[in-house]
Each structure stands twice: as C-alpha cells, then as structure tokens.
C-alpha cells in the first residue's frame, strides 16, 4: 500500500485496477459473460447474416437479400400452419399452466410437516417433463390402446380414440403435457404468496371478508407482479417448445402439432435450407419481442407494485 501511494504514476497497476470493486464484480460474472457473448450473442448475429442467404448446410451460402422473408410470408403455407399451431399451444397451455401452478401453490403455502415433500413432488414434472423419455411415455399413454383409453374404459366410457391421430385432440395431448410441468411457476407463486403481509388478511377478516373476497381483493392484486413475471417467462418458454412436438408427433397429423421450432429445425437440417431456418428464427425473435413489449406496456394497467403506492 505504502509503495503505491509514494509513486502516483504507478497508481494504475494491474493490482490497482483489479482492486476496484466493479472489476471484482465483472471477474465474478466473467464465465457468464463469455458464455453469453460467445454462445448466444455471436451466433445470433451470425444467424441474422445467414437469414439473407441461400445456405444449403453442405454448401457455401449465397446472398439472396430478403428472399427468405418474402417466401415465408407469401408462399409458404406450412409456415403459417406451424405459426398457428404454436400460437394455439401457447394461448392455451400458458394460462392453464399458470392457473394450475397458482392452485397448487395456494394449497402448499401453509407450512405443514410434509409441505417440503409435496413441493418437491409437484416440482418433479418440471425437471423431467421436457425429457425424451417422458415424451415417449406420453406417446404410449395417449395411444389408442394406451393407459388413457384404458382408464376411460374402466369408468364405463367406451373410448378407442386415437388421441394422437386426430387433428383436434393431438395438440391437446401436448398442452396437457405442458400444464403438467407447472412446478417452476408454482415455486415462484409460492414465494410470491409468502410475501403478502398477513396483516392484510387479518384486517380483511375483521371486516368480515370471506375466502373468495380475500382471494380476489388481496391475493390476486398483491400477486400481480409474480403473475406478470411468470406470464412472460412461460410465454417465451411456450414459443420455444420443441421436444414434445418433435418426439411425440413430429407435427402429425396434418401439421396440427407442427411447432414453429420443429418446422424451423426441419428446414435447417432436414431440407438443408439453413438460411431459411435462420430467417424463421429471427421472425420468431421479433414476434416474441413484440409480445413481451406489449406485455410490459400493459403492466401499468394491471400490475400492482406495492412500493409505487
């Protein structure tokens, strides 16, 4: 220390720079930063460049301007079909999953001896739910001679429906799979619920509010920041869904379960149209970005932050 103060010129030695507080912070997040720029930002920028090329994966790319985007919007019916299927999936699976997560979170919020155990059990599907093994299990469960039909039959409903083979039911098997994986939203809801001051409930009780009133007037408003966070997270997750569609249905029947990501994958790697795939990826980035932007804008209308009162 003494040496440094004696010679002001050498004040900016490496030791000095390293000692500054911000630098320590950056060093600590360095592994993340390297990964983020090297494996996310850089490939994204590269893919943006590729989206203006005809790029058969085995050949060198050639520049074709906006052709990929024009083809996509004007003459690719499957593009719109996959877009529609994905939107349908998100519109139904996200709210259902959040409702499910909230219900279970409310049941588990009371601390009992077993609550830790239950939390773990209900969280489990989130960990294993997007795995290939579960996807294959799902395929078997919803087969025409699978468990679901057997259960329906045992309750007296003579069902031989090929759930995966009908355009109206196939996507719902995927939605149910998504709803089943409510665990991570549930945990976030749980912590949100615990932060609601008990005093609010107590005074409401004194005023004679019943359970439903307390839920609508206290729990929901106080929980809106958590709901908002979960909503954005899950919507982004929903648009990125891949495994379910790819493993369970491969888009069948009639492209009714062909997720956007799967079609993008097919174009890029099966048909060798990587440039087109990159363009599709960027359209999705823009679209999800737009939705997120709208949600953030809508925050003012429905999200309640206690601190802003």
């Amino acid at each position, binding site marked *: *220390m003494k040496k440094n103060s004696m010679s002001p010129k050498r004040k900016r030695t490496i*030791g000095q720079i*390293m*000692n500054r507080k911000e630098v*320590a912070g950056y*060093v*600590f997040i*360095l*592994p993340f930063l*390297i990964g983020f720029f090297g494996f996310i930002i850089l490939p994204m920028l590269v893919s943006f460049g590729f989206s203006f090329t*005809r790029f*058969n*994966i*085995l*050949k060198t790319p*050639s520049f074709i301007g906006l052709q990929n985007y024009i083809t996509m919007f004007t003459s690719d019916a499957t593009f719109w079909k996959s877009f529609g299927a994905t939107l349908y999936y998100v519109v139904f699976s996200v709210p259902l999953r959040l409702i499910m997560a909230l219900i279970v979170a409310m049941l588990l919020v009371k601390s009992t001896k077993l609550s830790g155990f239950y939390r773990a059990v209900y969280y489990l599907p989130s960990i294993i739910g997007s795995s290939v093994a579960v996807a294959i299990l799902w*395929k078997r469960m*919803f*087969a*025409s001679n699978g468990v679901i039909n057997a259960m329906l039959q045992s309750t007296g409903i003579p069902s031989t429906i*090929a759930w*995966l*083979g*009908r*355009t109206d039911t*196939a996507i719902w098997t995927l939605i149910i799979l998504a709803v089943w994986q409510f665990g991570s939203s549930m945990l976030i809801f749980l912590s949100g619920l615990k932060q609601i001051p008990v005093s609010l409930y107590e005074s409401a009780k004194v005023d004679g509010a019943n359970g439903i009133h307390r839920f609508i007037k206290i729990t929901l408003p106080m929980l809106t920041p958590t709901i908002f966070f979960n909503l954005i997270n899950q919507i982004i997750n929903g648009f990125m869904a891949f495994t379910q569609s790819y493993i369970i*249905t*491969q888009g*069948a*029947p*009639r*492209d009714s379960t062909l997720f956007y990501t799967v079609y993008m*994958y*097919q174009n890029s*790697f*099966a*048909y*060798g*149209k*990587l440039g087109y795939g990159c363009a599709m990826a960027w359209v999705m980035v823009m679209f999800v970005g737009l939705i997120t932007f709208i949600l953030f804008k809508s925050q003012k209308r429905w999200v309640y932050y206690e601190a802003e009162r």
Partner: protein
Amino acid sequence: MKKKILSLLIMTAMVIGLLAGCSTKKASPAANTQTTEGNSSGEKEAAGDEEVTLSLVWWGNQTRNDLTQKAVELYMKNNSNVTIKTEFTDWSGYWDKVSTMAAGGNLPDIMQQDYAYINQFQESGQLADLTPFIKDGTIDTTNIPESILDSGKIDGSVYALSLGSNAPMMAYDKEIVEKAGVTIPEQPTIDELYEIGQTIYEKTGVQTYFDGGINYIQYLARTTGSYLFDELAKGTLDSSLLYFNSIAKFSDTDFCIPANLLVEKDPEIVETKPIIDQSTWNDLSFSNQFISVSSTAGRDLGICMWPTTADATTQPEYLKPSMFFSIAETSENKEAAAKFIDWFTNSEEANEILMGERGIPINTEIADFVKSKVDNVTAQVFDFIAKVTEIAEPIDPPSPSGFSEVEELGKKLVETLRYGEINAEDAANQYVTGSKEILEEAAK
C-alpha cells in the same frame, strides 16, 4: 487488499481451468488407451502401433445397434491401438444429425451412407475418395462384383462402399394369411393386394398397410420404364397420379389401416410398425429390414416383392445397395478407417457377428460363408435376394438434392389424402408442381 487480489487470481485461474476443461477431456481418453496398449502389446498389430481414434455413426434399429457394437468391440480387441467411438440414431433423425456435423466440419471418420444422399455429400466435397485405398489393397475388392463397386462410384471414383444388397420387399404375417386362407404371390399386383386385403379383413379383422413412400412412387414409375425425378423435373403427372390414385383406392376402404392410427404406429420405425402388434398383416420396406422386423415381431413372417401394376411393361423390382460406409474428407485417419471398412466387409469374424443384417454381404465368398451359418429368417432373405437377382432391372440413379423435401411433401399429401381433405388428382398435381419448385430451388 492483497487477499482480494489473491482470491481474484484464484478465481481467474479456476475460470480458465473451467474453460480449458473441454480440451483436457479430449486428451484424456487417448492417454488412457496408451496405457492399456502397453499392457496388451503382443496381439495382432496389423494397423501399426500408432494410436488411432475413429468415430463411426450409423442409423439403425435395436438389432443393428447390438450387432454393430459387438463387431466394433471385437475389432478394438484385435487392434488394441484403435479406439472406435460409436453413435447411432434411427433413420428419421440421422440425416439432420450428420448434415449438422458436416456443416460444423466434424463429420465422423466413418459414416453410414445412403444411396439417396450420397450425391449431396459428394457434391459438397464431404467424402473422401476411396479409390486409392482400393488400388493399394487396403480395401480388398477381389471378391466384390464390379457392379456393386459401381453403385458407390461418382464420376469414376469410389466414394462409398456398399455394405450389402437388398431389394424392396413386403413382409407379411404368415399366421394371419393362413388363417384367412389366402396365398401371397411372389409379386402381387396392386389389384391382387387389394383383394387379398379385403379377404383378410373379412376373415380375420386384420387391416392392410399400403404405402412405400417416395421409393414406391419411383417403383411405380419403373413399371413404365420411367425415372421419377425426370418426370418431376419436367412436371409430368403420370407416375405421381398412379401413386396417389392407388393410395386413395386403399384409404377409401375400411380394410386399410386408418391414418389416425399411423401417427402412433409409425411405419418408419421398426419398433412401432403396425405389423409388429398385428394391427396390419403386411408391411412395405426393404429386405434387410426383414430380420429386425421379424425379431421385433417375434413371429414367423413371409416375404414377397412390392406390388406392381397389372399392365407393367418393365419389371420395377431392383437390387439396391442397402447402405454404404464412406469416409469423411476431413478425417485425419483415413487409412485406419479404410482398414476398418475392409475388415467389416471382408472378414469372416466380422460377418459372423453381423449376419447380413445390413443386406447380403457384397463379398461373394463371405456371402456364401454367412449363408451356411444363418438362421431361418436370414435364409429367407438370402433366398428372396436370389429370386430378385434373376429378374431385377438396374436401379435408378442416386436421387438429386432436394430429395428429402420432396419426400416430405409426398408424405404430407398422402396424409392429407388419407384424412379425406384432398382428392388423388389434386394431390398428384400439388405433388408434381411442388416437387418441381423444390428441385429447382435445391439445384441453385
């Protein structure tokens, strides 16, 4: 302060160590094998003493995966300096996987190759020329017929070595067929198959499967001596219309397995084929699959050729190299890879394990050797191939770029047709116009 610097330095060292982790990992297996080599030095060292690690990928099913793995282990035991890393997937994911590898410049040393894709990979310079290895005897071709070597040739150079011969075949459930009291001809016509299917459904309630995908459209084109991709390039409707009409003829009946069941009983994967659980009595694929279908089904199956048309002017049945091995241009161990391929093709010990699962061995002596050893099921395939050899016409040229998208378009239209949302004529029209566009785009 000094403590802080120290801790930061340690942190940085850890981070760097972490980043370097990938490369250390790569080096370690080589080091491991080096030590094992020291222990078992005296064995056959035909490949020299140099440490070699080869990677090998194939598509397949459980039967093939088990057999190939066993053969690879034997090779590593005999050649202790060689380590072979294997990877396998089913057919549908395979080409996505390898084309991604190719784009990344890390195609495995040895890849299983298909007749439909060999052109695309060769065109883009991914495949090593095997001709030098054949000339210097690394790959021994003395007992391999010229015509089979030719099937892997492009512009006069060999880029892939066939692993066996097969032919389009229809498998059928013997028990069900007997129960229904019908006989299956060696090569039924579509009309005959239609009647047989009807009878079987009436007698036993078991349904019929009818489709062979793009291979079957090509097959139907061959009945008139035409080549499908010529037709598609010109926009000619003939064979496509014949195909979609035939599909429609079957899908309109109740003895044909409905489309909604085919989603879960995917005929493209051996393990889920509808013949396996007797949802159907028949299945259309290629003869080398007969072995794995039989073993998965666990029943006695019969074998015949694909249905042809009643007014066929030429024989559509052909012999096909079931699959190839090719070596990546980027491979650093081409010679070691060639040695493995030679062993895989020409050695009795390898083929005693493989037992013709990839098709009848191309080395005629090995084929005879294997034939003397095989079980009933494989013998059926040998006999079938012998029969086909007598009548087969030469195979179509390898498929052009854009093949996989054309194939997918056909599948989608068949599905639409089966769901009753399009008629055969429109489907054929859409198929031809769509394919023409795809092929033109892919050729650019």
